[in-house]
């Protein structure tokens, strides 16, 4: 069992090894939040590394509660910063995303036949395109709640908004995604 509270305490006392155990435990979630929010593997990689540095520097500001939510808040803010900068020089790289998705997939489905695999890749790209259509606030919320499976409370903490705002952003994001994915769902 991963002793998160112990690692946090040790890391705050200056134990880098303990902090890095936290990194290893959360890096997959942090990276995927950044990836799905930004839609760009390179940007997500940068943002995730920046966020872990910022977390290390700002560990003294962590006031208990969910470490994951605190960390994801740093990631989310770094994503907002990044997309603001990216809007000035837009360069979406769906091809790169498709490349990145060319990796072992859902472990629940261990031996997909080639046809299913292509379908899954296409689905992933399509979902990402739909996510990219959403306003940033809604995209972040739906990524946290539906892609990563955070609770409303944790998502509220990670985005720094009230619970009611999470509910309404999530519902608007889902309604929009339902429309965007309508043609795909009917054939799937």
């Amino acid at each position, binding site marked *: 069992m991963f002793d998160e509270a112990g690692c946090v305490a040790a890391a705050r006392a200056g134990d*880098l090894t303990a*902090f*890095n155990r936290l*990194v*290893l435990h959360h*890096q*997959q979630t*942090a*990276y*995927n939040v950044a*990836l*799905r929010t930004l839609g760009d*593997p390179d940007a997500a*990689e940068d943002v*995730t*590394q920046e966020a*872990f*540095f910022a977390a*290390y*520097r700002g560990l003294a500001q962590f006031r208990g509660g969910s470490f994951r939510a605190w960390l994801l808040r740093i990631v989310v803010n770094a994503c907002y910063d990044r997309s603001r900068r990216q809007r000035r020089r837009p360069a979406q790289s769906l091809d790169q995303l498709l490349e*990145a*998705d060319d*990796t*072992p*997939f*859902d472990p629940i489905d261990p031996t997909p036949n080639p046809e299913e695999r292509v379908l*899954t890749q296409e*689905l*992933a790209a399509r*979902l*990402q395109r739909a996510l990219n259509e959403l306003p940033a606030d809604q995209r972040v919320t*739906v990524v946290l*709640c*539906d*892609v990563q*499976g955070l609770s*409303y409370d944790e998502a509220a903490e990670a985005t720094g908004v009230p619970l009611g705002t999470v*509910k*309404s952003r*999530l*519902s*608007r994001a*889902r*309604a929009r*995604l*339902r429309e965007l*994915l*309508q043609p795909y*769902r009917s054939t799937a």
Partner: protein
Amino acid sequence: MPDPGRFHLHLTDEELSSYLDGYLDATERGRVEAHLAGCSECAVVLEELRATVALLRQLPRVPVPHSFAIPADTARAATRPGRRFQLFFAARAATAMMAALFVLLVVGDLSGALRPPAPPRGAPVPEDARLAPAAGSPALLPTDLAATPTGADAAAPSAPAASPLPALDAEASLPLAARAPEPGDSLPAVEEAMAPGAAAPSTAPLLAAPADGRDQVGSGPPAATLIPDTGAEPSAYYVGTQAGSDRAAEAPPALSVDLRPWQTVAGALTALLGALTLWLARGPR
């Protein structure tokens, strides 16, 4: 108990979304379920939302490209203020100093304080005649000093030579306090000093080289404090008040506003350092 007044309205996105996640209290849930039972439209929307959420949950988790663990050496650097940060402060200080030097060079040149020895023709000015006002003490002035340039100092009110003192004449009938206002005196004090000098009550003549230095003694020096220090052609400010001198009518030497080579160098260095500071201030990336 469902609210009959709202039953005919379709369910909102938020109601459906929260219902999906089980975030409704018992009353709301009862109302939503009652509506869904009688409204196929809303039931379809709910199922489509459920399918959408299911799709999102299936989105593959992409493996990290590499470990994001922080190496020990980077961790030390991360907690210190960055090298770039320190460079920024150094560059900022250097820019400020260079800018001050540049201003000093230009202003000093305009005011004549830094000019190479080219005193007004025929009126040799002892070096201490310029330096004396810096002390702010009238007692140190050579009281019989006849020829002293003053007006150009208007370009630099804070420079030593800007003191209204140099033309102090022992023969003037003004009281000492009125004749020798301290640098930085307020306007009323200057007017007070001017009052007895009936020969020149207006400030207008101060901009021209007075023909008769004697009579201008009381009013000439205050000009240094009255004239604004920016904007107009500097030579216009060069009030060659060669008070008491027989050569007072001679035209004062014209001022050059062209930058000298070392001023250009200082200006260019200031601009360069400023650009470097701005670049450093932007931070990495």
